[in-house]
């Protein structure tokens, strides 16, 4: 079945057993993002030390794709430099916009390469991006200088 290209076992594993879920202290910034078409929601917190992402915690409700994406994101970004996280963000957004044609860099995205199949289903791309957008927003707020993230700005239309 074609669907298995989207619902990779790795995605279903993260969905059934999400990592880093549950809101934690301390944190520098907290954001709440929603997907207005389906009601999926995420509250996400970021804790930075200098330029390092020391924690991401979240509480969320939504479909398997949005839940697994938040889990994979936190695995990937916690413990890394903000710049490396933003690079992963950019690579992930590009993958989601690839309409199934993307060749993801596994060194950068690790488990997140499993979402390649999602990019063939336009209605689900926003599910996969929900937590990534929330993370970028929270990180910008934690840094107190949103403009510093402009180089990672998402093209119009991909975030709604």
């Amino acid at each position, binding site marked *: 079945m074609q669907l298995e290209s989207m619902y990779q076992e790795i995605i279903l594993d993260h969905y059934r057993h999400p990592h880093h879920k549950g809101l934690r202290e301390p944190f520098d910034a907290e954001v709440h993002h929603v997907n207005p078409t*389906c*009601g*999926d*929601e995420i509250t996400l917190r970021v804790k930075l030390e200098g330029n390092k992402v020391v924690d991401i915690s979240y509480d969320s*409700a*939504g*479909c398997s794709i949005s839940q697994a994406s938040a889990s994979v994101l936190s695995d990937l970004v916690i413990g890394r430099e903000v710049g490396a996280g933003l690079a992963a963000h950019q690579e992930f957004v590009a993958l989601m916009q690839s309409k199934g044609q993307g060749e993801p860099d596994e060194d950068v995205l690790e488990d997140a390469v499993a979402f390649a199949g999602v990019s063939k289903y336009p209605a*689900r791309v926003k*599910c996969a991006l929900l937590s990534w957008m929330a993370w970028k927003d929270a990180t910008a707020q934690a840094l107190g200088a949103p403009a510093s993230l402009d180089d990672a700005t998402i093209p119009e239309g991909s975030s709604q």
Partner: protein
Amino acid sequence: MSEAALHDALEGFDVEAVRKDFPILQRTVRGGVPLVYLDSANTSQKPQQVLDVLTDFYEQHNANIHRATHALGEEATEAYEDARSKVAAFVGAGSTDEIVFTKNSSEALNLVANVLAWGARGLKAGDEVVITEMEHHSNIVPWQLLCERTGATLRWFGVTDDGRLDLSNIDEVINPRTKVVSLAHVSNVLGTVNPVAQIAVRAHEFGALVAVDGSQSVPQLPVDVRALGVDFYAFTGHKMCGPTGIGVLWGRRDLLDELPPFLGGGEMIEIVTMQKSTYASLPHKYEAGTPPIAEAVALGAAVDYLSAIGMPAIAAHEQAITAYALERLNAVDGLRILGPAEPVDRGGAISFTLADVHPHDVAQILDGRGVAVRAGHHCGRPIHQRFGVSASTRASFYLYTTPAEIDALIDALDEAKGFFG
């Protein structure tokens, strides 16, 4: 419902013949599986008869209406006004002057809410507007905007656990301060058929106006707007075998005459000076600018199509299919129906949740099997909140839906449970 009873209910309604009229129902999706289209409450499919009229209009009769003095202009105007006559007869309007073409139900409801913001009937602080918790966003937001603009207060009827309007406090909710009551005839989420006539009687005791969102009722039930005793009735073409971009507002003639215009522009005027203007007579007063002409003409063809089959027969088929679907869905372990579980005063839209599987995931698995449903809040977030969920999956039926398609839905739901279980 037993198979024999289902057969009896469907007898005399040749659904296979109906299906042959809809070219899209012959196609396959997702790598070759047959399309099972269960999303008609979202938009209906279109029969060849309607598509032919749309094409023929552009190929043979296209011109602007009410202003061209040439042959095509006459033909286009006649086709457009014929469509208005057909629509008027279809819903029991008192005259064609009471049928205003809009772009959809949302625009029709916004029209009513806007013209009640000023003029002799303009709302003010202290006045009340009544809606219900089961409304589509298009029958909530226009009234919120009206209340924000005028200082009026928005009130609403709640919904019972079994998906009916809670009218236990009707004496309090509709009162001397009530100026307008607006509600859905049939809920797009719960499927509930609301007691519109009964509520209209109550509202009229206090001189309040009654507007009805008929988006889900006109496609599937015989509707007589005057027998319902309401003041305004909105519906949309694309859910009743017509094209997108064309909707209808029926309004009582004396009210439409009295109320101020909505949009200003060409067509809706009588005399324009640089200082002020006078307005055209009904219905043109409410049709500013070039309207969706071909779409209106094709809506007329959709009305012809539905009338030839007969709305009572279409309603009976809808009822039988809905009863069969309810029976089969009620038997699915872990499935919870939002709305009436019995096929009584109930239309052909069934929203449900399936255990802990998110509606997006349910719909995706169904889509893999060619079964098209809607997942999300279906433009009814408040009613989902009322039932403690953020989203649901909705299957909805129409005159071309077969029992075999319901069976395909049930099989696909089993697969979804297995996949995410």
